């Protein structure tokens, strides 16, 4: 029966009006595509964070990393001795990064524009003995192989890079490592691994001692990887290896499997990805409103036909099934198309997502997002499920309405039960408010996720949607007097005064899109305002110097002591701060240890104190060896406050530091512990500097000093005060680019939905339009009336949407952002932007109404008298 009904009715309607069906499929496809593109991009970007060694060899079984700083080479014989009874390969690894020097056409001072290359230092001879089918750096071509040892600048490059840049053995590959431009020489090309494994274009391999020397890490290694020899005892030996590694560690390292390390990358970016995913659902959510509207409209249009079928004995269940099947077919088509569109969109999104992850989290090698059969199925399933959910209510209406009512020819389309909607809407808003009080979900690594906050936002949007019908009615009522102006006004306002369920759905779609976009606008505006204030207070020095190879958050390029000392010794250099930072494990969670001259902070920077230090001891290197300052994110993540103590691991042993104060900081969400660099250098045996912040002496021009420094040190990146501020804001805006794109799509879908609604209502009102034409109304007047109605619906969606956005903005800033990232932002409302946005949406609604009305006014009469 369902198939028969589909074939005889649904399919025929689709053939008679293909435009509506195509538009619906496209809208659904857009919703699925946006969600899917973000999902693929997120996955690809996280997958781009890999254990690079696993691409060269087989996946290692265990990895040990120090809780802070680096491991001394002396641990290697110790490890060998401890594991002497086991068939395990020990692979020490040094890992650093580098970026190609600026080309003439590169932006003057933009960060993150050039590629970050990962350099792996491996013992090339030991690599030959690994249990892999085919070593990537082969000894078969002996002459070239030995070049890797003899030539301190010999590098092996991946096949993809060789091909992309036409490099071959002997080619020169210049790279900035630390503050020096180094002309690396290509010693060989790494072939891609088996089973389709492709070595990323950004991975370079050098012999371990050569890279140690080049990166200023002689005698130190970043991690050690362990590979168990395959065989029947492999599993036992694997477990035994871990036990021994943990037993011999004595706090000097932690042991993890590569999977555990990959998970930590996922955890690190979880909040960022989650935010994107939630935002990407907006278009789908608005799309659901539209599917609902379209199917509901179809039920009204075809009610006579349904009535006839019912009177012929077709059961309510068969009618419901046929409608649901029609919704499912729409979903199937929309899901399939959405998967393809999403895959195409993911190719752009992965670059945008990857760029943000590079700037904020780690180097991601992802360049493309691939589509698997499973994901294709998931996208289609999403389309079908979404469409069936949206089609459920109309299907129920179609099945339950009595045949006699169905056969009635005229009357106002069903009006919603306003009071019930207002009550339900109010209840949802109250629930949303309550959910803001629920604390975030906390993960083992200290990460937090504002799950209740997200639900609060969702409920607020849904609750607001339910209140949209009264809002449309309010627009109609409050402008009632304007009905005297002209007939189009009178007509439009009469429709708004008594909104049908279609009005409500269109307004609800616009309300959701407006609330989320404007809420996001408030958050970005608040972020922008807070950031500008922070930048104003924090970035006061004349010049900011770092390695020009530092192009991502994971960059390991530093300034050598000889270089920064020489800079400090220059006659034009005034007061300066030498800064270093290193990731450390506190309470088993990764955080950032920031080291600098705390006196400099006190003298030059207006810190945004949350807890001001009680005295000046923390700013005095002679007295602050056991003191530290912590950021707000650290405070939230670890639940520590002024006066508490923390244990910070260092290569010189565990240090107990008392928290002297806490400050607002927007650098990272994992939190920072700030100590004096004098102690850091001693504890970490590391004099390298991440950056140097300096004032120039009176009488010197910062630009001239910068030019002089760049001439002497071409591998440096030097920002003047104003250019750094601009660059920080550029990176900040860049990280919100994808967010805006998602919101824009949501708003576009909502405006298209408004057009669909008006079109469907005009088809429904064909009889009224015939009457109006008989009364002498022109096509233009009918179009004007539809335009005014469109404007009214848009107002009914936009005005409460903007009001709701204030609450949503507050939830985003004070709940989601605070709980997830631990940042306190000043609540700022960007009035101008919101006003312009509202105007654009209302104008779009008016124009859509006009065009739809113009078309509707020319529909053939629906009369048979």
């Amino acid at each position, binding site marked *: 029966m369902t198939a028969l009904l589909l074939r005889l009715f649904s399919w025929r309607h689709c053939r008679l009006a293909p435009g509506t069906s195509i538009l619906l499929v496209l809208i659904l496809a857009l919703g699925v595509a946006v969600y899917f593109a973000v999902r693929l991009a997120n996955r690809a970007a996280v997958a781009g964070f890999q254990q690079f060694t696993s691409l060269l060899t087989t996946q290692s079984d265990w990895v040990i990393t120090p809780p802070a700083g680096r491991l001394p080479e002396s641990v290697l014989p110790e490890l060998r001795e401890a594991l002497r009874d086991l068939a395990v390969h020990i692979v020490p690894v040094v890992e650093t990064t580098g970026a190609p020097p600026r080309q003439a056409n590169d932006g003057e001072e933009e960060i993150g524009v050039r590629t970050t290359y990962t350099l792996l230092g491996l013992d090339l001879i030991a690599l030959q003995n690994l249990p892999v089918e085919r070593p990537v750096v082969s000894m078969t071509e002996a002459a070239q192989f030995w070049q890797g040892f003899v030539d301190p600048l010999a590098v092996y490059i991946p096949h993809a890079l060789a091909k992309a840049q036409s490099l071959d053995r002997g080619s020169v590959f210049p790279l900035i490592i630390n503050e020096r431009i180094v002309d690396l020489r290509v010693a060989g090309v790494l072939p891609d691994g088996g089973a389709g494994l492709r070595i990323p274009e950004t991975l370079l391999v050098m012999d371990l001692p050569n890279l140690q020397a080049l990166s200023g890490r002689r005698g130190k290694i970043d991690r050690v990887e362990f590979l168990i020899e395959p065989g029947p005892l492999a599993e036992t030996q694997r477990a035994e290896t871990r036990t021994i590694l943990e037993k011999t560690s004595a706090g000097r390292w932690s042991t993890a499997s590569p999977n555990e390390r990959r998970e930590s990358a996922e955890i690190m970016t979880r909040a960022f990805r989650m935010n994107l995913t939630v935002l990407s659902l907006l278009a789908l959510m608005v799309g659901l409103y539209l599917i609902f509207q379209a199917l509901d409209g179809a039920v009204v249009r075809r009610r006579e036909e349904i009535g006839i079928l019912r009177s012929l004995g077709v059961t309510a269940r068969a009618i419901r099934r046929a409608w649901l099947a029609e919704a499912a077919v729409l979903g199937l088509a929309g899901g399939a198309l959405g998967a393809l569109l999403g895959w195409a969109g993911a190719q752009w999104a992965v670059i945008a997502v990857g760029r943000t992850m590079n700037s904020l989290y780690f180097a991601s090698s992802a360049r493309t997002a691939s589509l698997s059969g499973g994901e294709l199925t998931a996208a289609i399933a999403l389309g079908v499920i979404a469409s069936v959910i949206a089609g459920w209510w109309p299907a129920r209406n179609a099945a339950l309405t009595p045949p006699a009512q169905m056969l009635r020819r005229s*009357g*106002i389309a069903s009006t919603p039960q306003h009071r019930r909607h207002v009550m339900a809407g109010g209840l949802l808003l109250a629930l949303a408010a309550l959910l803001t009080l629920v604390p975030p979900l906390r993960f083992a690594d200290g990460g937090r996720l504002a799950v209740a906050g997200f639900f609060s936002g969702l409920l607020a949007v849904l609750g607001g949607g339910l209140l949209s019908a009264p809002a449309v009615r309010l627009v109609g009522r409050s402008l009632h007097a304007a009905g005297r102006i002209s007939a189009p006004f009178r007509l439009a306002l*009469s429709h708004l005064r008594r909104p049908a369920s279609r009005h409500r759905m269109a307004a609800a779609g616009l309300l959701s899109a407006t609330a989320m976009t404007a809420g996001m606008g408030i958050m970005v505006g608040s972020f922008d305002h807070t950031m500008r204030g922070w930048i104003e207070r924090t970035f006061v020095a004349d010049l900011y110097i770092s390695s020009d190879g530092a192009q991502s958050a994971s960059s390991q390029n530093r300034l050598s002591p000889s270089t920064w000392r020489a800079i400090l010794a220059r006659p034009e250099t005034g007061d300066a701060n030498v800064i270093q930072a290193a990731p450390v494990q506190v309470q088993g969670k990764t955080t950032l240890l920031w080291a600098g001259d705390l006196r400099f902070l006190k003298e030059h920077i207006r810190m945004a104190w949350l807890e001001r230090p009680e005295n000046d001891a923390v700013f005095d290197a002679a007295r602050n060896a056991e003191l530290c300052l912590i950021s707000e994110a650290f405070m939230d993540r670890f639940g520590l406050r002024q006066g508490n103590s923390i244990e910070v691991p260092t290569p010189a042993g565990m240090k107990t530091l008392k928290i002297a104060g806490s400050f607002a900081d927007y650098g990272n969400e994992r939190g920072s512990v700030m100590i004096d660099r004098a102690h850091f250098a001693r504890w970490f045996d590391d004099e390298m500097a991440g950056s140097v912040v300096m004032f120039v002496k009176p009488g010197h021009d910062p630009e001239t000093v910068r030019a002089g420094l760049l001439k002497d040190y071409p591998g440096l990146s030097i920002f003047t005060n104003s250019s750094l501020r601009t660059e920080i804001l550029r990176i900040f805006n860049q990280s919100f680019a994808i967010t805006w794109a998602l919101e824009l799509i949501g708003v576009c879908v909502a405006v298209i939905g408004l057009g669909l609604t008006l079109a469907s209502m005009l088809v429904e009102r064909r009889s009224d339009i015939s009457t109006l034409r008989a009364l002498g*109304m*022109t096509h233009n007047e009918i179009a004007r009336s539809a335009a005014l109605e469109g404007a009214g619906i848009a107002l009914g969606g936009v005005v409460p949407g903007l009001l709701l956005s204030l609450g949503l903005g507050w939830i985003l800033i004070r709940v989601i952002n605070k709980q997830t990232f631990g940042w306190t932002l000043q609540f700022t409302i960007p009035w101008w932007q919101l006003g312009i946005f509202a105007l654009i949406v209302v104008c779009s609604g008016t124009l859509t109404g006009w065009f739809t009305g113009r078309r509707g006014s020319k529909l053939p009469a629906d009369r048979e008298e």
Partner: protein
Amino acid sequence: MTVRALAKSSAPDEYGVSSLSMTGLSAPLLVASSLTKSYDGQAVLRGVSLTLSAGERLALMGPSGSGKTTLLNCLGGVDRPDGGTLRLRDKAIETLSPDELAALRRRDIGTIFQFFHLLPTLTAAENVELPLQLNGLPARERTERVKKLIERVGLSHRAEALPSQLSGGEMQRVAIARALIHRPSLLLADEPTGNLDSVSGDNVLNLIQELSEETGTSLVLVTHSAEATRICHRTIHLRDGEIAAEERTA
């Protein structure tokens, strides 16, 4: 006189005007000559000619599919004939642009429908006021005229009711008021009693007659009911898109 004889005598003269159309009431208001109209190759009107004098009331009768409503639509400028000429007060309707046609309808023509076709979101008074608004009358004058006419059709107490709150007879009274509020010269009524019980139908017919007499409005009434023709001066019988007969009824 038999119907056949009437049909013969009502054949158009050399000017395309039926001799029986001359009622002697006054000069012709509407002159239709040899109107033809087809839908999808099917001829619905086959050279229909008629004349209507100012103040005259004409009934159009005929079985379903005889072309009554199509003829009415053509007379009202809602539909365009494929051939023939149509003049209302010396204005050639078939040459008018869509906007000029709309202006003509809003100024000179009032229409009453079988299914009332009141706009469901407007109150009774607002429905009646709409033609005046379309004609750009000032608000105060509109209000006064609407009040008077609503009172005249006996619906003062229902002025603020929505169509869905009115009975069939009440709805048709509102529709009559809407059709006459702007004082058109031509009133077109398509089965105005077709959807009403006999008592309401009688009342509606009486009202139409009274108001058209009071205002001097000409009427073209499409009806199935011989009883309804009592308010008209003459009746034209249509069959298969042609005038089959014409008779004087009053």
